[in-house]
């Protein structure tokens, strides 16, 4: 009763009382579904165990005249629940592998987004090229910032901008210590381990801003190592890329100017 009460008290706090966050991407939705199936199996088992336990405690409480029955075991019963427990975990294993491909393997990009993301013109409904690998972004974790390197030469920090309906493949690396990439609404986390490249993906079907933060303790300022993914229209993505390129070029030009000035000042 206490447990149920404690579960229900924060019921108004958020929609995700008992389930993980799931945003508009197939992998997160499928993870959520798999989680719910396992949760329901688990709750059924737990309900059974608690019912048996509390019923027994109530029914066989010590009272005048009650004598405990001296039983030491029951082989059939014991075999039964051993096999039962085994069957449940086999079932969960099978269910997991049924769901695994949808969670792990990147989906194909939407046709329009592929074309637009590549800056090509293509007829709507034209199937994506068979060699389509989606938009590959290098994600690098460092104390305490995420850096994103895009295939078209541009890069950004903290905020990742991606086109809608485009499969985004993330190659996750770390420059110093272990970090973990996690945008809860866009699927599970993947650790960034120095010396390794980890992979995950998402394909957002709706525009929006999705927040997350580093999930592996990476030093004192770990709580402030946040990340943001902004999903926009494919056209807007192209504009953003162009603008980002200009900003980077401008920034580099300014930096070079400054360097020249400093060198001029410090020159003998």
């Amino acid at each position, binding site marked *: 009763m206490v447990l149920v009460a404690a*579960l229900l*008290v924060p019921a108004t706090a958020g929609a995700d009382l008992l389930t993980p966050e799931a945003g508009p991407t197939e992998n997160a939705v499928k993870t959520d579904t798999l989680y719910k199936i396992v949760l329901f199996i*688990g709750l059924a088992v737990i309900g059974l165990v608690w019912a048996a336990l509390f019923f027994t405690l109530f029914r066989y409480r010590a009272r005048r005249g009650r004598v*405990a029955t001296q039983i030491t075991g029951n082989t059939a019963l014991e075999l039964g629940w051993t096999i039962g*427990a085994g069957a449940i975990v086999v079932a969960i294993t099978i269910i997991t592998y049924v769901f695994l491909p949808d969670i792990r393997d990147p989906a194909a990009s939407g046709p329009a987004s592929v074309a637009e993301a590549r800056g090509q013109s293509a007829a709507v409904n034209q199937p994506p090229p068979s060699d389509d690998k989606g938009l590959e972004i290098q994600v690098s974790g460092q104390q305490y910032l995420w850096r994103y390197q895009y295939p078209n030469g541009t890069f950004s920090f903290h905020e990742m901008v991606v086109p809608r309906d485009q499969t985004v493949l993330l190659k996750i690396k770390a420059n110093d210590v272990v970090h973990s990439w996690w945008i809860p609404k866009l699927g599970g986390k993947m650790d960034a381990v120095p010396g390794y490249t*980890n992979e995950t993906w998402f394909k957002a079907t709706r525009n929006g801003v999705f927040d997350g933060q580093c999930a592996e*303790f990476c030093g004192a300022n770990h709580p402030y190592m946040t990340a943001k993914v902004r999903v926009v229209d494919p056209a807007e993505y192209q504009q953003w890329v162009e603008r980002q390129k200009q900003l980077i070029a401008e920034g580099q030009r300014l930096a070079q100017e400054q360097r020249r000035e400093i060198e001029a000042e410090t020159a003998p």
Partner: protein
Amino acid sequence: MATPEYAAREPEIILHGEVGQGRAGWIDWVTTTDHKKIGILYLFTTAFFFLVGGLEALLMRIQLGSPDNTFLDPTTYSQLFTLHGTTMIFMVVVPVAAGFGNFLVPLMIGARDMAFPRLNMLSWWLLVSGGAVLYGSIFWEAPSAGWTSYAPLSGAGFLGGHGIDAWILGLHLVGISSILGAINFIATIHNMRAPGMTLSRMPLFVWTILVYSYLILLALSSFAATLAMLLIDRNFDGTFFDPTQGGDPMLWQHLFWFMGHPEVYIMVLPAFGIVSEVIPVFARKPIFGYKAMAASVAAIAFLGVMVWAHHMFATPLPLGVLGFFMVASFAVAVPTGIKIFNWIGTLWRGSIEFRVPLLFAVGLVAQFALGGMTGVMLAVFPVDWQLTDSYFVVAHMHHVLFGGSAFGIIAGLYYWFPKMSGRMLSEGLGKLSFWLMVIGFNVTFLAQYSAGLSGMPRRVSEYSGSGLTEYNVISTVGSFVLAAGALVTIYNVVRSIRKGRRAGPDPWLANGLEWFTPSPPPQHNFDVIPTVRSLQPMKDIRRSIQEREAALTVQADVTEPPSKQPEPIP
């Protein structure tokens, strides 16, 4: 030295030198080789560190009690969770089992002491030294890489100073303490059992201590090497875990969890053992499925050393590896389920007396079941990608280690305190403590499951509103209720040591040989080592005493057969 007189009165005593005889009180305590005194020293030491670790937890809960709080700065916070985890695991839950084991194993198996009494004392001294080194660091710089101290963060390049070095040295000392203790338990249990006590008549608590000891040998000796590698990396230009020099951070994670996961069973199996002792006594029934219970302890330990990488599902590991560790982790659920069902089977058709030890034992069964269930959910690796390193994991781990281990340990405290001190703990205070702890514990940690599901990672000192505030406020309130419950038990112990009702040798009408001795037991434990004929030797002894008394009153001149039954202690 008063030995001769004592020995003359009790000719059968085997005395271990003259230690502990005729010395001033505190000197006697710190130089004793008596397993019971060492056991009590262990229990007081772990109680002290439990208070320290609990205080650290409360400070963290205050910090998280409101969003964007500035009560603690991030560095202090990271030091607190490092010390909290390290303390509770290495300084509390592992050695508390050694404390109960020390006091009880020789009594339960009908021995006069542990196999190596001096080694036993050394173990305690090493534990205290390890704790002193770990906490000595706070006067310079406390360790701050978490109890897992993942490389390369724990390397000298990222955390200079000597906090991590103190952590390494402290854990080395505590580890050696545990290993020596484990050797002692193994030697004692294999060689010093009373006549008739075969392995299949051994109390389940002793079974769990035996398995606990083997797991410690395996896990902590490997961990000693792991710590030495980190020490070399930090201080002697080693590159085991440094990726810039060809080392591998994944190596640390594998080696750490190769200790870290068996460590979970090291912490939980003795609590299972306590529950398996308590439930039959208060249900007035023998344990249900004794052999399955003993076998499942061994099975959990065996499977438990093959599941370490389920802590690493989000790292770059091949899919086949993930699948193996998922299935292996599931497999642990089967023997664990057997234990839970057998405990319910023990209660079934019993005559259940709701004394405080039973309440805490049943608390373990109910709460560990939930912790086990969330453990299965975490073992589903695609789901784990969403849940790992979030507050869901924090909640799961506390459901297993607090709702499980700690509740079992407190059940053991209420159950054996009369044997240790000769006095009963207050039932009323015990029940108050139980309900405060059950409510406080579940409110604290059920809210944390939801915080994790809503996207809160673990080990963050701050969070911004966005739906996390409510869960954290609830959790903080719960943690203070939990702390109040724990304080009631501590007050109960302090009060009952002097003022508790006298217990007598066998206040619960229990089953184990430990109840055959007076409370507290004399240094030599038994005047006569009894012969064991069943799983419940004390029940046999009580019955034979009753039969004899009945025979004596009815027929004073009855000629008894030459008795192999032990005489009751006057």
